């Protein structure tokens, strides 16, 4: 049995039936990371000791006759901007080199309460700014399907790790598509929950009115399993809502009769690769055969999304990243004249190029004289785009589009073309502006590279997404979605 090929829910059953120990599972995946990560570069830190210690604790629980909770001893990888007490939390940046989180993020507490085993921290674009993982200050992560290609970003490490079976499940974070786009590029399932569904406490902030923790897995069932474990109210993040988390297991049925799905023409226009389009259209046919009603719809304002997004997210980032000043934690310049000079030097040495560019863009957009023209204008457009979605959701249960206009591009291909890089998020960003949930699910391959299909739902209707994604998945050969490494 090749242990690493098992999914979380399969591992959970084996552990439950005492056919395998949590320690063996943990060791198996740690070995897998050891054997593959020199090619892949998905992990920044492997928590070997911590993981084996918690595995032993869980095995002792089982030996005492206790039943494990939701995640039942399954290993998980976390993006390196999610705080785990005692572990590094670099955010892919030099400015946080050597920093160790003194506390757990809310989602980490939830993972531990539900008996997951944390295997380590995954690589990412610096401060989650990027779509290819090339902006990490530490290393390049490669796409497990083709090592010359990017895994997508910014949660590229988490997506690559799951695709390469280094971990069965992982958490990433999203601001404008950072879970869905790499999930699409790596051929795995990636969910961005509704804004307010999952607490961001302990997750390093980028764009606070966008940020959301997302879940990555190799099938829909696993994705639903982790989402259920981390979702819900948290008093430390006031954006989380007092709405019950659904029992997502109930949504995992093939039957989707009566579901109305809108296909927005704006997501299938210029810029979309023809083969990707065909793949997504084939996926839509499957949903039709499974009973859904498919009709065209229109979201005329989504074309303005990227423009509004880059202003708003950069403005928020420029404010959030003000905390990295070389005083209480993180990099402090060795030589400085006074405290102001310390700020300048520490920040200038610590931040990478893309992060500085966005801080400058955001600072400019918020500065006196430009705030109304850029920041406030973008906020108003954001509201119009949200209203556009609400209009469509009066008629439809879900909207379907490609996740990204192309498959994974080559390493280095877009690093010097800002807009080309930003354009790979063109179909994910509108959803982030509206704060609604969306899932990317593999729907086929083009020239050996996976294609993601995006299902978009209304606020707090993750259950509808899981239902449709599960239905589609029944017709996808998941075995063919395992890259050879």
């Amino acid at each position, binding site marked *: 049995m090749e242990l690493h090929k098992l999914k979380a829910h399969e591992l959970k059953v084996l552990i439950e039936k005492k056919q395998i120990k949590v320690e063996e599972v943990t060791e198996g995946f740690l070995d897998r990371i050891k054997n593959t990560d020199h090619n892949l570069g998905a992990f920044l830190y492997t928590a070997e000791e911590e993981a084996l210690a918690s595995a032993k604790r869980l095995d002792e629980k089982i030996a005492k006759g206790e039943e494990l909770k939701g995640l039942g001893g399954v290993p998980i990888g976390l993006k390196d901007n999610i705080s785990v007490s005692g572990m590094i939390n670099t955010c892919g940046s030099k400015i946080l080199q050597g920093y160790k989180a003194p506390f757990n993020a809310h989602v980490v507490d939830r993972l531990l309460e539900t008996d997951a085993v944390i295997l380590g921290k995954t690589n990412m674009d610096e401060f989650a700014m990027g779509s290819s993982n090339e902006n990490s200050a530490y290393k390049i992560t490669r796409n497990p399907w083709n090592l010359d290609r990017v895994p997508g970003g910014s949660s590229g490490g988490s997506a690559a790790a799951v695709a390469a079976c280094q971990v069965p499940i992982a958490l990433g974070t999203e601001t404008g598509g950072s879970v869905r786009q790499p999930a699409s590029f790596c051929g795995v399932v990636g969910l961005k929950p509704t804004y307010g569904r999952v607490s961001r406490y302990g997750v390093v902030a980028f764009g606070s*009115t966008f940020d959301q923790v997302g879940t990555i897995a190799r099938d829909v069932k696993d994705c639903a399993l982790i989402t259920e474990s981390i979702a819900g109210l948290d008093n430390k993040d006031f954006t989380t809502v007092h709405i019950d988390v659904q029992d997502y297991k109930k949504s995992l049925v093939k039957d989707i009769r009566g579901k109305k799905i809108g296909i927005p023409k704006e997501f299938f226009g210029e810029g979309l690769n023809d083969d990707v389009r065909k793949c997504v259209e084939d996926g839509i046919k499957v949903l039709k055969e499974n009973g859904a009603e498919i009709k065209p719809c229109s979201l005329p304002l989504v074309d303005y999304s990227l423009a509004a997004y880059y202003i708003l997210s950069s403005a928020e980032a420029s404010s959030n990243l003000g905390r990295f000043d*070389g005083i209480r934690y993180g990099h402090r310049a060795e030589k400085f004249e*006074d405290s102001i000079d310390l700020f300048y030097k520490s920040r200038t040495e610590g931040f990478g190029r893309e992060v500085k560019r966005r801080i*400058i863009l955001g600072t400019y957009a918020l500065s006196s004289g430009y705030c109304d023209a850029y920041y406030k204008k*973008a*906020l*108003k457009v954001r509201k119009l785009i949200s209203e556009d979605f609400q209009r469509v959701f009066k008629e439809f249960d879900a909207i379907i589009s490609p996740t990204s206009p192309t498959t994974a591009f080559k390493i280095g291909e877009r690093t010097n073309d800002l807009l080309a890089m930003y354009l790979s998020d063109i179909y994910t960003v509108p959803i982030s502006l*509206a*704060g609604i949930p969306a899932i990317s699910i593999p729907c086929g391959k083009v020239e050996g590279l996976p294609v993601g299909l995006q299902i978009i739902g209304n606020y707090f209707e993750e259950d509808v997404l899981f239902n449709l994604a599960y239905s589609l998945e029944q017709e996808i050969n998941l075995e063919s979605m395992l890259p050879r490494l």
Partner: protein
Amino acid sequence: MKFFEKKFLNTERTEDTEDAERGKSMAVSIKDVENAAKLARLSFSEDEKEALVDDLNTILGFVDKLNELDTDDVDIVVNPYYIENKFREDEVEQSMELRDVLRNAPDCVHEYILVPKVI
């Protein structure tokens, strides 16, 4: 710099028009970058500043399309949807371990973080 010229021409054409007031055609200059850099406490070489001017003009040129939309009557909502402030009881909870927090400080003595002399 084709883009800059386009913007520049735009400025001439739309001067004194409503569009200009709404922020169209504001090509970013070195001075703007220097001002933002000062506000953000970042320093750049001359080459870096020039690259930033180009980058910002590229991005803001793309952003200009927002002006095609009439938003005069649209309210501002900062979050994706309206969120009420939530209040909780002011109860004492366990704090983080001081030792773990201070371990991350670049320079400290006992329970104090050392900073350069301010006054």
